[in-house]
């Protein structure tokens, strides 16, 4: 089973990299981009077959290492 983890900055936490990307896009002539938030994508190959157990385990990984919950949110998607 595969777990896809997206880590993004929480709302209210300033994202200077996202802002710079937004400015660069508008410099390239892409109009209509109201806001850009950037983050990380982490893919995990898991031996676990049970989705509930896999999710529980990946949640723990996110809380302990993959995300810093002071500033970041995480979203887990299980595939396969």
């Amino acid at each position, binding site marked *: 089973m595969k777990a896809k983890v997206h880590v993004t900055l929480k709302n209210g936490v300033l994202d*200077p990299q996202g802002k710079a990307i937004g400015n660069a896009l508008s410099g390239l002539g892409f109009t209509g981009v109201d806001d850009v938030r950037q983050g990380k994508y982490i893919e995990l190959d898991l031996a676990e077959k049970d989705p509930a157990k896999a999710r529980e385990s990946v949640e723990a990984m996110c809380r302990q290492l993959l995300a810093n919950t002071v500033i970041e949110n995480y979203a887990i998607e299980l595939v396969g």
Partner: protein
Amino acid sequence: MKSAIVVFPGINRERDMALALKAASGKAATLVWHRDSALPDVDLVVLPGGFSYGDYLRAGAMAAQSPIMRAVKDHAARGGRVLAVCNGFQMATEAGLLPGALMRNAGLKFICRNVHLKVANASSDFTGHYQAGQVLSVPVAHHDGNYFADQATLDRLEQEDRVAFRYCDAEGRVDDDTNLNGSRRNIAGILSEDRNVLGLMPHPEDATDPQLGGTDGRGLFTSIVEALS
């Protein structure tokens, strides 16, 4: 004062720290490898600056999971002093020794130069040799020094007099214009609840010899040596 410096792969300020500690205390610091699980019997543990694990995932995130960090946390929980500088400050927040987090500099650039710091707390073991409001010149060298904490945590830090240093200009003006890296409330360094852990982004160890361009960092080392002897 007996001290130990924890060495992680990718750090680069442990020698500077060792020189500053030796100059202030007259005793050589013990270097401890990050894979060790125990600390020697010391009064002060230093988490030094650098780029542990190449800043992978987040600055300090990997180092915070090192075997030695359990011993560092136990040392702090017993009231032992911990000085966490630059990458060490990032590790200390990642390990939960200090609140908040250090994010990418608001200007997105790596900043390597002397900056002015205003002493906010001059009564801790780390800062007792300074005067409140004193302006120091100390170098910084970081990409992720933008201190973030939620409003409640920031209010609490201020109410409990736990902000140690703030970014300012030569006249001591603290505002958005003198905020080096976007840190909330210009915070450059904070103390733990029990005031036995100090984390700061600037490098006081690199301002301890006239040949390095200044000696304003000496006060921090004099303070901790006096407090612990």
